[in-house]
């Protein structure tokens, strides 16, 4: 026998356990709501980061070049350092310098000097058979390992070749070929320091990949313009706009899905709650006959609903974090950690869905006529 008096928690516990089937149906609907909301809001919160990560694979979104009107297209000597400091630690900055050399047969060929490690990170979409791993300094006699574009490799005809620039000869060995689908395929890439020693030229272009939203890219752009006067700086608009559009549309899609799912769940919970009130109308009528004020009967009903919504929140949050992580693995190939700040939002959504769904059943409750019901009419 219970040693306690009768209290609201006891009433709720007894009622929910007694109606196991209905309770389970309401719990499942509200858990699905919480899980979907958690998954979508977690993904939504991580969306910028994940999509920017994806877009980073497409290369630079800002290009800095020496002013062509100045006659000398070279960048200031400290341009690379300034650009790195200005663009931020999460940005990638890769220097490039180009020259037209000659092959052994006298054919012109574009040769580029760059930071191989940095370009490998920034242009991860390049299809490279093998990146140069070791390099010999010019003048030591051994061939320099280079990355040769597929069209350039065809023109050269051999993996080992010599290039001539201003009468200076460079012995090179193709470490791997590059296929990008554009002008890069016709070039030979070699390490920047070797290129500089061989040609005496310094970087003329900085390709920068700024991480973040389109607004952030614009901010970086403005800062670079202030920090590097006398250079030409422009955004790769197609890439920045495409990224902005994809982020914006994906967000809209996710929010729309969330609203639709919440509405579907609300309808499902509404049906369950209405059936529940209908089944228990005599119990509520008895409470009214025993002197329960209208608001006390409604509080009992709402407390049951809110309790279920909060229990479902706990289950749904755990489930939703798992779903978000799986979606992250499948789509972005990275894990998505739980985002605690979405918990209050999911709680609010779940309680609002439950209360919205309870609105019509509450109306039924208010209109319950104990006199009629208790006489079995």
């Amino acid at each position, binding site marked *: 026998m219970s040693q306690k008096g009768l209290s609201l928690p006891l009433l709720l516990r007894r009622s929910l356990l007694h109606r196991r089937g209905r309770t389970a149906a309401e719990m499942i609907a509200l858990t699905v709501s919480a899980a979907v909301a958690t998954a979508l809001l977690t993904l939504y919160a991580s969306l910028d980061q994940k999509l920017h990560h994806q877009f980073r694979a497409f290369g630079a979104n800002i290009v800095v070049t020496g002013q062509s009107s100045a006659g000398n297209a070279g960048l200031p000597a400290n341009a690379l350092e300034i650009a790195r400091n200005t663009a931020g630690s999460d940005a990638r900055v890769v220097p490039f310098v180009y020259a037209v050399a000659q092959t052994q047969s006298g054919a012109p060929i574009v040769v580029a000097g760059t930071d191989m490690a940095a370009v490998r990170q920034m242009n991860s979409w390049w299809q490279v058979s093998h990146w140069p791993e070791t390099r010999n300094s010019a003048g030591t006699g051994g061939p320099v390992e280079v990355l040769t574009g597929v069209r350039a490799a065809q023109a050269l005809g051999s993996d080992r070749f010599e290039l001539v620039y201003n009468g200076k000869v460079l012995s090179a060995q193709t470490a791997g070929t590059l296929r990008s689908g554009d002008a890069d395929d016709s070039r030979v890439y070699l390490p920047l320091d070797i290129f500089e020693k061989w040609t005496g030229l310094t970087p003329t272009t900085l390709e920068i990949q700024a991480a973040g939203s389109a607004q952030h890219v614009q901010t970086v752009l403005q800062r670079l313009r202030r920090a590097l006067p006398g250079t030409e700086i422009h955004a790769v608009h197609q890439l920045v706009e495409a990224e902005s559009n994809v982020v914006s549309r994906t967000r809209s899609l996710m929010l729309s899905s969330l609203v639709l799912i919440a509405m579907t769940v609300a309808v499902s919970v509404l049906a369950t709650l209405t059936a529940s009130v209908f089944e228990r109308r005599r119990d509520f009528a008895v409470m009214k006959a025993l*002197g329960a004020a209208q608001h006390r009967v409604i509080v009992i009903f709402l407390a049951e609903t809110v309790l279920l919504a909060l229990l479902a929140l706990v289950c749904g949050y755990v489930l939703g974090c798992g779903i978000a992580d799986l979606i992250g693995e499948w789509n972005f190939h990275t894990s998505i950690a739980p985002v605690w700040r979405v918990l209050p939002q999911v709680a609010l959504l779940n309680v609002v869905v439950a209360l919205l769904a309870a609105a019509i059943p509450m109306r039924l409750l208010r209109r319950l006529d104990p006199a009629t019901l208790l006489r079995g009419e």
Partner: protein
Amino acid sequence: MDESQEPIDSAQDTIIELREATRQYKGRAGEVRALDSVSLSVRRGEWLAITGPSGSGKSTLVNLLGCLDRADSGSVWIAGKDVHTLSRQELDQFRAETVGFIFQQFHLIPYLTALENVMLAQYFHSITDREEALASLRRVGLEDRAAHLPSELSGGEQQRVCIARALINQPPVLLADEPTGNLDAANQEIVTGLLRSLNQMGHTILMVTHDPAMAQMADRIVELQHGRIVAERKLTATSPV
């Protein structure tokens, strides 16, 4: 019957008084007068049986006396209060304090034990008191069944729990709607005995019944037809306690 407009408080032995009470409902065929200018006075401690065929207005009268409904015209005084003047919230509280319901179909909450069903009336009245609820069950001979759910009790036992629930807040008026209508003969006897002893202890009982034998237990029988009192019979010579 008393036709004066004075509150009944002045008459200490009158606990219920209806004055020209009328209640009508809108039906498909127009307005139906379920209760038509009924005047009725019940003395404190009286056992009144209300009889009549279906549709005679018994239910409507019970609803008015149980404060579950309001008269369209006329007045209903219970324990010195004109219930028409009470707000909805005051009426809920007044019902909890003044009327104990005994239903034909018991209407116990299925997921609460017998003890908890009794305490439910306390819960909506003020605060729950387990010992008091147990005492109420003891009074109807069901203390040992306190922890049982209604589904584990017989019909007679459920009705006795219903009576214990009706008594727990010590209301001056017990409203019994066909209290033995769903019981076998043995349980009818037990419940009738209980009502008799409650009446002897001073409880005012208003009982709706179709059963002439049950009606004979009362001090007075009022017969309704077409919403009006058509007959009234006093059965005992002595006044109730």
